[in-house]
Structures are given as structure tokens and as C-alpha cells.
């Protein structure tokens, strides 16, 4: 706080610019704090396996794709990558299809049990959800869903649904009811008013919340490790092989995990804040 405090204080120009300097260097420092570790991972990924295991490390990447090539031909790795994408894709679709209607209901209707319903949604967020994977492992064996990407996607959907409901709730709340009412007076039914007026407006936001669901599934480790054995996702595969795999494999795998996250957070950055603003109160 001190730097920000100084920057605002009505003081002599010299202290003022000193405060401004402190403030800016604080911002730069915090950006570096986030970016530099990722940069180190990048350097490791773009170095040959020999360099990764040697000492001392160069501070710049040598743009050698040996590590990534090793990653790609490592037995089971590409299947794991495919499983990760599949699971995340299914999670994305399911959480929106199931979650968005509820978000719409919360923003448009006053109904009995609404508070109870919101409480249930919030409760799911406040529980250590990956733990559910343990009993579900048994349940899935009974139903034949064990060790399938679909079964895992169901668990990841449980993780993503609270967010899907809350994001769509805040998105729908941002579209005035009058727009829909105008459509009704012009001869639309509830359904056509929704598809023709609300849906086009809401689509970018829905996409953002779908991407968020994708990231949640993509990143999840514990449930994935518990529920899959043959059809491991990338996170589960990396975790399982932590003790045995060489460094360059770990870092290349970590890098492959990070890249989609970087892109997706960039894509949804506008919506990250919308959901917490309304959902909090």
C-alpha cells in the first residue's frame, strides 16, 4: 500500500514522482513475478534434452525441439493429450447445456425455492469437489463408466457447473428484460424471443463460460488420476510418471499444459470479472 499512498499524497513534486516511480516499479515487479517462472519453463521446453539435464542452465532458449519431439513420441503421451481434449470438450458442452438454463431461470424469474437453489449452487463451490471422485470410482465400475473419458467428464462437469450457472446468471442479468418483452409484443413466443433476441447478444459470453469450463477440466488433476487408469488424461499421465520420467519430459508436458491456459485466459479475460461482481452478493 505504501507506494500507492505516497503517489496520491499532495506533496512536493519530487516525492510525488518518487511515489509514481515506486508504483510503476511495483507493477512491473509483480508482472515479472508472474511471467518469469513461465519464461523459465519455456526456456526448458525449447532446449534439447541434454541442455535441460545439464548445468548451468542458459537463460535463453536455444530453439531446439528435441524435448518436444521426445514428448510427442513418448508412449501413451499423445493418447493422453487426446483424452484431455476429449474430456474437456465434453465438460464444456455439458456444463453449458445443463448450466445455462438455470442461469437464465435465476436472472429472469422469482420462484419459490430460488434461494435454496442458489445455496445448493454455492455449496458445491465450497466443498472439496475432487474428493467426490472416490465414491464415484465405485459407482462408475458398477455402471461401466469406469476408466472412460465420459465418466471423467461427468465429474469435471460437476466442478464446472457452479461457475457455468453463475457466469450465465450474471450475463443474462446484463440483458434488459424489456428487450425480450418488446420481442413478445412483436409476435415472438418466449422461445423465439430467446433464440432471436437474447441468444445472439449472449453468445460471446456463453462462449467465454464454455472456455472457462474447458480450462477447469483441462487442469484438473486429482479426479482424473483417480478415475482413469488406461485412458489417462495428460494431467493424470504426468502425475503418474512424476517419479520416473526425465526432466525434459516433465517440462515439455508442463508447457503443453500451460499453453492452452494462456490463450484461453486471454480469450475470456473480459468475463472473468463479470461473474464475481454479481455472484458475490
Amino acid at each position, binding site marked *: 500500500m505504501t507506494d500507492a499512498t505516497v503517489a496520491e499524497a499532495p506533496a512536493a513534486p519530487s516525492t510525488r514522482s518518487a511515489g509514481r516511480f515506486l508504483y510503476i516499479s511495483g507493477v512491473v515487479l509483480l508482472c515479472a513475478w508472474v511471467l518469469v517462472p513461465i519464461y523459465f519453463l519455456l526456456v526448458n521446453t525449447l532446449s534439447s534434452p541434454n541442455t535441460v539435464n545439464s548445468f548451468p542452465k542458459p537463460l535463453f532458449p536455444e530453439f531446439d525441439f528435441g524435448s518436444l519431439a521426445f514428448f510427442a513420441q513418448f508412449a501413451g503421451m499423445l493418447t493422453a493429450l487426446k483424452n484431455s481434449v476429449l474430456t474437456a470438450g465434453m465438460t464444456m458442452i455439458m456444463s453449458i447445456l445443463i448450466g445455462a438454463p438455470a442461469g437464465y431461470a435465476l436472472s429472469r424469474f422469482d420462484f419459490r425455492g430460488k434461494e435454496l437453489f442458489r445455496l445448493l449452487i454455492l455449496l458445491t463451490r465450497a466443498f472439496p469437489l475432487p474428493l467426490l471422485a472416490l465414491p464415484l470410482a465405485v459407482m462408475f465400475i458398477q455402471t461401466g463408466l469406469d476408466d472412460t473419458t465420459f465418466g471423467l467428464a461427468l465429474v469435471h462437469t460437476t466442478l464446472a457447473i457452479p461457475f457455468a450457472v453463475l457466469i450465465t446468471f450474471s450475463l443474462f442479468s446484463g440483458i434488459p428484460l424489456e428487450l425480450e418483452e418488446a420481442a413478445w409484443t412483436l409476435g415472438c413466443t418466449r422461445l423465439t424471443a430467446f433464440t432471436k433476441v437474447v441468444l445472439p447478444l449472449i453468445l460471446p459470453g456463453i462462449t467465454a463460460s464454455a472456455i472457462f469450463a474447458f480450462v477447469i477440466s483441462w487442469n*484438473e488433476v486429482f479426479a482424473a488420476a483417480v478415475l482413469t487408469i488406461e485412458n489417462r488424461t495428460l494431467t493424470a499421465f*504426468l502425475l503418474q510418471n512424476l517419479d520416473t520420467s526425465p526432466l525434459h519430459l516433465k517440462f515439455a508436458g508442463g508447457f503443453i499444459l500451460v499453453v492452452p491456459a494462456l490463450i484461453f485466459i486471454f480469450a475470456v479475460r473480459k468475463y472473468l470479472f463479470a461473474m464475481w461482481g454479481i455472484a*458475490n452478493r
Partner: protein
Amino acid sequence: MNARLLPYMLILPVTLFLCLFFLYPFVLVAKQAFTTGAGFTLDNFREVVSYWKFPISLKNTLLLAAAVVPIQLALSLLMATMVTRMEKGRDLVLYVWTIPLGISDLAAGLIWLAIFEQSGFLNSMMHGMGIVDKPANLLTFQNPGLVFVAIALAEIWRATAIMLVILVAGIGLIPKEYYEAAEVFGASPWKRFVRITLPMLRPSLQTALVLRVIMAFEVFAVVAALGGTLFPVLMGETYAYQFDLLNSGAAAAMALVILAISIAATLVILRALRVPKGATI
């Protein structure tokens, strides 16, 4: 369609889904924890608690949470206030600061492994500066303190973003008039922060802390990547019961222990930061 039934139709999918994949598994996990084949028993809990690793992993988990969460709270508050007074480059800085939000805990663990492993960047830089002449293995049982610091740093790096997002959204909801009024009466920036921002931010602080603390009790992949078995935590022990010891009853009991701690922490936070009755924002 009947307008009174419509909202219930809309929330039906989520409700069914959460009953099947959230409430029902909880019943199952409880049942599994309290039975060993023949009737009600506390044997699973007795077994879990009396295991020599339990006190250590409980201590480690709580200690990590106690060390990491306050730092993250301070850091995210600082970052949030820095961002709100920013005019130029606000979007870029926010994007950079929220990048770790999309990065999985496993990837975060690997990123920090790149820094702390024996041929890693920390050793390389110390070597470059002439502090050490040959790379020391930092993450071993001889350096329990350093293992803890590495894990704590990775946790702070990874999970401050989620608190930042919630707090930035919360600060955005505080009416600007309050600050203007305070400025008219000559309140210093620090005073404005303590007397307006902090109290008005209570709902967001609640959400942020509850989410973060629960995540802290679930810490798993970061520890697996950095500390391995050097730093046992509750979630890692749960995983070990399920997989290495093939004792799902004990794993279920561990899950309930983590759940109990999470609920207790949630209640404490909600109580400590409750908004006084009648106060509105």
C-alpha cells in the same frame, strides 16, 4: 408453456445432475467411511488417525495454508488497489496478473520445479553469481525448510489470481461517491482504504477467502511435483490410500476429515467477515 412451471423446468437439469453427482456421492463416501463390511464403525477413522503419517500431513497442510493464505490476501489486496487506480495499460496488467488462474496446479508445480531442481535456474543463477561452485540438490529431506518455501512460493504464485479477480470485481461494485465524500472531508488514501474499501469489500473477501482456504486444504499436485513424498499432505495421503494401499474405506475417511476441516474453516471465515444485519451495499 406454463409460466409458473418454467423456472423449475429450467433448473431441473442442474438439480438432477448435482443430486446424482454431488449429493449422492457424498452419501456414498460417508457410508464408505463409516462401514468396514459389517455395520457402523469408526475403524476407518481410527486407522487413518493413528497412522504415523497423519499428524505430519495434517500439520503440513494447515501450516501451508496458514503461511500462504495471509500473504495471498495482502498481495491480492495490494494488486487490486494498484489496478483500480491504473489508467493506462490496465487490461494488459490484469491479463498478466490473472494468467496463473488458467494454469493447473500440476503445471505450476512443474514450473517451480524448473527453478528449484538440482540443475535448475536458481542453482544456475547462484552459480553465475559465484555463490556456489557446484549445483546443490535443494529439494531433499535435508532441507525441509527449503521444500516448504518452494511449495509455498508455487502456491502463492498459482492461486493469488483467483482472489485478485474476486476482489477487483468487488472493488468495482463500491460506489465512487463514498470515496469522493471521504476525500472532501480530508481522509488520507490509507484511511479511505481502511474505512471504505475493506468494510465494503467484506462479501468479496468472504468469497475469496472461503474459496482459497478450501483450495489450500486440497493442495496436492504442486506438492507431488515439488516435494514428492518429502512433504506429506492430507490430499496426497488420500490418494495414497486409494492407489498404493488400495484401502478405499480409509481414503473415504480421509476425504471426510478434509471435508470437516473445510467446513470448519468456511464457518469461521463467514462468521468473522459477516455483514452486519441491516447493512446494505
